[in-house]
């Protein structure tokens, strides 16, 4: 139990640049943030760079964090995810949703498809097996690949209304799976 478990104390300490506060932040959140970054950029070395970039950004903007808008974790998550998506877009620009191509829609989103690294949250990932596979894929496309609903529509040849409904269904299923009330 650390006094930093109280986020108000933690944030004040971060703003005051206390080394131990940053260390706590890293110890507490780096695995989650690294996980999402790695899921997006897939390359471990690059994921390290993005994570560093994200932590620097977090530390520089910590005084703009507003607890009324969400948790600290969500705030950091959004920063990290956006950094990773930026890096991915810079590197690849291969979101080739070829609507004209009758044969195959080639979508090269490594982030959503490659899992050639070891997810070490064994057991945690298993819980997602309770989610319908198509919904899991949808959420991954939407969240980890940063595709818009329209892009998913184009990619999957699915009506926009269905994409919207399915995203909502996916979130409702996850809510049940994680037992959040």
């Amino acid at each position: 139990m650390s006094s930093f478990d109280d986020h108000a104390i933690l944030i004040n300490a971060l703003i005051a640049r206390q080394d131990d506060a940053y260390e706590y932040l890293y110890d507490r959140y780096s695995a989650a943030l690294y996980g999402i970054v790695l899921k997006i950029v897939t390359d471990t070395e690059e994921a390290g760079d993005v994570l560093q970039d994200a932590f620097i950004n977090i530390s520089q903007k910590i005084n703009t964090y507003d607890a009324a808008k969400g948790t600290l974790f969500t705030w950091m998550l959004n920063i990290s995810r956006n950094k990773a998506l930026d890096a991915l877009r810079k590197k690849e620009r291969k979101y080739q949703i070829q609507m004209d191509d009758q044969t195959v829609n080639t979508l090269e989103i490594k982030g959503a498809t490659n899992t050639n690294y070891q997810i070490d949250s064994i057991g945690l990932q298993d819980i997602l097996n309770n989610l319908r596979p198509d919904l899991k894929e949808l959420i991954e496309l939407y969240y980890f690949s940063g595709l818009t609903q329209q892009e998913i529509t184009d990619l999957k040849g699915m009506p926009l209304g269905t994409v919207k409904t399915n995203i909502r269904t996916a979130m409702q299923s996850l809510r049940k799976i994680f037992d959040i009330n």
Partner: protein
Amino acid sequence: MNFQEYINSGIIERYALDNVSPQERQEIECMSHIYPEIKHELMIQQKIIEQLVMTYQVAPPVELKSKILVAVKNNLPELSQDITQGNGDSIVETTKTNVIKMTSPAPTQGFYKYLAAASIAFCIGLGGMYLKNNYEYKEQLSALNISNSGLEEQMNSISQKLAIIENPNFQKITLPGIKDKSPESVATVYWNKGESTVYLTPNSLPKPSSGKQFQLWAIKDGAPVDIGMLPNNFDSTSLIKMTNIDDAQAFAITMEKEGGVPSPTMSEMYVMAAL
């Protein structure tokens, strides 16, 4: 208010999934200030995402920790800059240097009209100074003075407005239109929190339908507070004194029956902004 409909639209999931436009973001943040139900739903959706992300966690390489902590330390800005460092997406700004900017929503009407009138008055005044010593033009000068008096009146009105919008104690809060209701609407609130004074410029609001009137709300401690009705003869450059409010997390305008109502009609919200 039918917030269930709002929740059912799926917008909160998209917010939690970080896939909304800046305007939608503002809209939701404002809504969650007003309605605890929406805030509750928002928190739930964020929790779901957090849990989801946790299932993907991967411990970073051990050597990364010291590298990142050193990099963080080396990249922290000077302490003195902390206060001014923002993330750039705040919509609240002081008005000191933004007199021109506020006209942008209605460039054909707006304050340009007044600025033009002001500059004409200024030119005439300047011309008058030169003419003052010139006997030959005395008659013309008196004629000019007469036409100038109308402009003077306008000048006074402009001066009053400028005194408010240029006063650094006034926050300028731009209220953009609600996407699904009236995306082209814009209004601006000038709020002097220290003195609780509030002024409103309806930069671009539709003419209220018959028997209706716009009502301004402040959201204070999560509840809407009526802070006055807009007279129906407003124009886009009016600067209307509203009821004082000492604290607010958001401002919004709804169209209500003439004379106003005790609590806002959600579906009739035209503009809003969270602070």
